[in-house]
Every structure is written in C-alpha cells, then in structure tokens.
C-alpha cells in the first residue's frame, strides 16, 4: 500500500529528535485522531539551518514528517512556506488515498513552526 520511498522514510527517518532552545516549534494533529507531528527549527538569518521532528502516528505520518525536514533543510523561510502537504506527498511518490487527508500534515507542522518563529521575532 505504501511506496518504496514512504517505507524508506518510515524505516530510516531523517532528522528525528529535538532541538534545544529552538527558534521555532510547531505542532499539528491530536492524539484522538491518531497523528501528532511536532517540528523544531533552527533559523540563522533567513535560512533554516537545522530541523528536527517528533511524530506519533502511522507510517504515512512518520514518512511525511521525515520528508518535509529533508525538503526544507538549508532553504529560506520564504521557500519553506510554499511547500504544501501535497508537495510532500508527491516527493514521497504519492500516498494511499485514505492517507491524504488524515496523515499528511507535515507541511502544516512546518508552517506552524515558522509562524512560531515569526511571532517570537515580533516580540523581541
């Protein structure tokens, strides 16, 4: 049911973990629906220098989280903001239809982390 690429990211997820004192943190989903994704960002200037994730969820949830971290590392904030959930799914070679709406939230988590960074900047 999953593509080889999804299984690769599920088996060997990239950038798992946390960043201490991150510049931005974003979390989406809830335990009730079975998926929670949290993304940590380390931002220097405009560039996403480092990114880590922690995810509770199915194979698709883990794989999309891993994929999105790979897609944004070294990118500018502006570039990261245009990455959509659909683009993450596409980069993984597609997801089963049932997974497109429930477990494909990694870009939302990323955007939420960027928003968190921007909110912090405003305060400072």
């Amino acid at each position, binding site marked *: 049911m999953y593509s080889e690429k999804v299984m690769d990211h599920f088996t060997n997820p990239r950038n798992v973990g946390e960043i201490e004192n991150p510049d931005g943190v974003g979390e989406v989903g809830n335990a009730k*629906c*079975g998926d929670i994704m949290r993304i940590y960002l380390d931002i220097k200037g405009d560039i996403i220098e480092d990114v880590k994730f*922690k*995810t*509770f969820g*199915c194979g698709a949830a883990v794989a999309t989280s891993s994929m999105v971290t790979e897609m944004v590392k070294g990118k500018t904030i502006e570039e990261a903001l245009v990455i959509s959930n659909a683009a993450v799914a596409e980069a993984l070679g597609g997801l089963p239809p049932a997974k497109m709406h429930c477990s494909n939230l990694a870009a939302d988590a990323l955007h939420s982390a960027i928003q968190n960074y921007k909110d912090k900047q405003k305060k400072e």
Partner: protein
Amino acid sequence: MKRIYLDHSATTPVDLEVAALMMTYYTEKYGNPSSVHSFGREARQALEEARRQVAELIGATPQEITFTSGGTEADNLAIIGTAEAMSKKGKHLITSSVEHHAVLETCEFLAKNGFELTILPVDAEGIVSVEDVRMAIRPDTILISVMHANNEVGAIQPIVEIGQLAKEHSITFHVDAVQTLGKIPINVKDMNIDLLTVSSHKIYGPKGVGALYVRKGVRLAPRAHGGSQEKKRRSGTENTPGIIGFGKACELIGKRMDKEDARQIILRDKLMNGIIERIKYVKVNGPLGEKRLANNVNVSIRFVEGESLLLSLDMLGIAASSGSACTSGSLDPSHVLLAMGLVHEIAHGSLRFSLGSQNTEEEIDYVLEQLPKIVERLRMMSPLYDQAIHK
C-alpha cells in the same frame, strides 16, 4: 526471511487434507448436486456428508444447516430473515456494541427501515451484562443477536444465560460464532440458540463458505430467491468443493479442539505476560483467564500508533493486526475498544496477535525479542512519550 503468522482471527491457511479433498470435487466429481445423474448424485452425497460434519460440531441435526457464502451472509440471513418473518409480532431488535460489522451494520440497516434497535453496552473487559439484556427486552422484541466471542479482544459472552432469557420470552436468539467454532465446544441445544453463524476460513477451511444453523421450527425468510436450494432459504448452486472442504475442516478441528486449546493457552499467556514484562506502559485489552479465547492476545502499547507497529513487525516477517483508525479504514479506532471505554489515543495503539495451530514457542520467543525494540524505536520518535516520561 522466516515469516510468522499471528493473525488467525483474520483468516487461516487451508489444511492440506482439506485442500486435497476439495480438488477432487473441482476436477473429477464436479457435478451439480441438484442433477439426477451419477455426477450429480456423487456431489449431493458429499455435500450431505459435509452438512452432517458441520452439524455434528455444534450439536445440531444436518437438516438445520444452511450453507452460505460465509459469515457475513449468514449474519445477514439470520437478522434480516428474522426481521422479515417476525415483523408482524414486533419490530424491536437487541444486539451489542461489540458485534462484528456484519451484525451491527445489518441491524442498523433495519433500524433505518422501520425497526427499532437497542445496542447494549459492554463492561471494561468487553462483556455484555445479562441484566442489561433482561432490561432491554420488550413485548415487541423479536431478535437478540450477541456474538459468542469477540474477534478483537477475545471476550467470551454469557451466551447460555442470554439464551435462557430469550427462550423464556420466546425471542429468536442469534449467535455469531465465527471466532469460537472449533475453539470452544458449542451445543446449540444446550445453549438455547436458534440461529448460529459459522465460517469455514477461520478453521483451516476455504474462504467463501459459511453456514447458518436454523433451529427446527424457527421462522426465517429467505434472502436469495431462485432455484430453491438449501430448502429455499438460500437459492443458488451450492459451492460444492468449498462446502465439502468446510465439512472436512469441521471434522478435523473437532478432533483436536481440546488439545489445541490447551496448547494455545500456554502460548497466549507466554506472549501476553512476556509483553507486559518487557514493555512499560502496556494495557491488556479484554478479559483474562477463562473468559478469554485461547488464541487471542490484545494489548494497547501507549505513545505509539498501531499501524506503525504493524509495519515494523511486518518488516521482520511478523503478521499481526491493530484496532487503530489507520487499519480500520475510518478516522475512528476500533468500535470494540471504544465501547470498552478506551480513550482514542490508547485504542490507536492496540495490537492483536491471534494464534493458530502452526504457531510454536520459538515464534513467540522471536516476537518477544523483537517487539520491545520496535516499541523503543517508535517511542523515541513520539512526542507523547517524552511528555509522559518527563512529567
């Protein structure tokens, strides 16, 4: 890679002896049992022998067995057939919240079409209360449908007591025994059962075959109209090889039931206790001891999600199942676990292992060696886990 199959409540391999017998009736003795000639007669004879074998395993007479395409069709025939035949007497049906979808959805279909439905709750172990059944009975109740044992958590229901109640009130009593046939002794007469659903592919017989026991004298409307087969209850040329395979499977499992049950209980408890000992934050779902099916292990592993567990196990060749939303095809986790009062996040982390006749102690050891590593890996990824352990 060696593969370990621990999903026997989903389906089982066909016994080689059964498969060999079936092959004869596909290629050599392929007659239509309704035909007059010798081809037809030999098929009819074997078909009736299968009917006798199925009847014997449940304490029925052969005339009381109607073959169907499986458990789902038998459940539909039992429930809709009763509703149709008895609608002049009343329109109230009683079932439980942990039934298989084949029962629940069928009852809900009737509830949308002029019938009234009471869905009984279960306790934390997944067991229906006899008192709740008693309270739910009304003068217009025409059917009580409660499963013998639950397919997800292995909870064995108080069928004898419910059967007694149904008899006292002259209500038709249907039992889905798909998970218990060949595992727990069934005697439809002693248990006051009017309609009993059984299925072949859970007992090392072929898929696509089942049966409904219909107690002599019970009124039941047919679901499939046509050529009058199966005493007009279920028209259509009989799946002769399948039915013959089912009959043989019944005979074989009946012979080894007691011994196999005892063997599986040892493996079940080893697996269940081993998981509890090796992994923290685990909850057993369903009852312990005698109220649990011999082949069922169901645990919720907190802070991880069921499908991730299944994928990880599958990569090591271990086949299991889960009640998480991702595997149920809906956004909600298992209706059985929710009915037992589990919160969503714990239901999402459920894992079921169901044992079969070919499982060995070495296989259980292998699962117990691998599962803690899988859980550890997934928990290290889980944002819920660090929240919980840092509390």
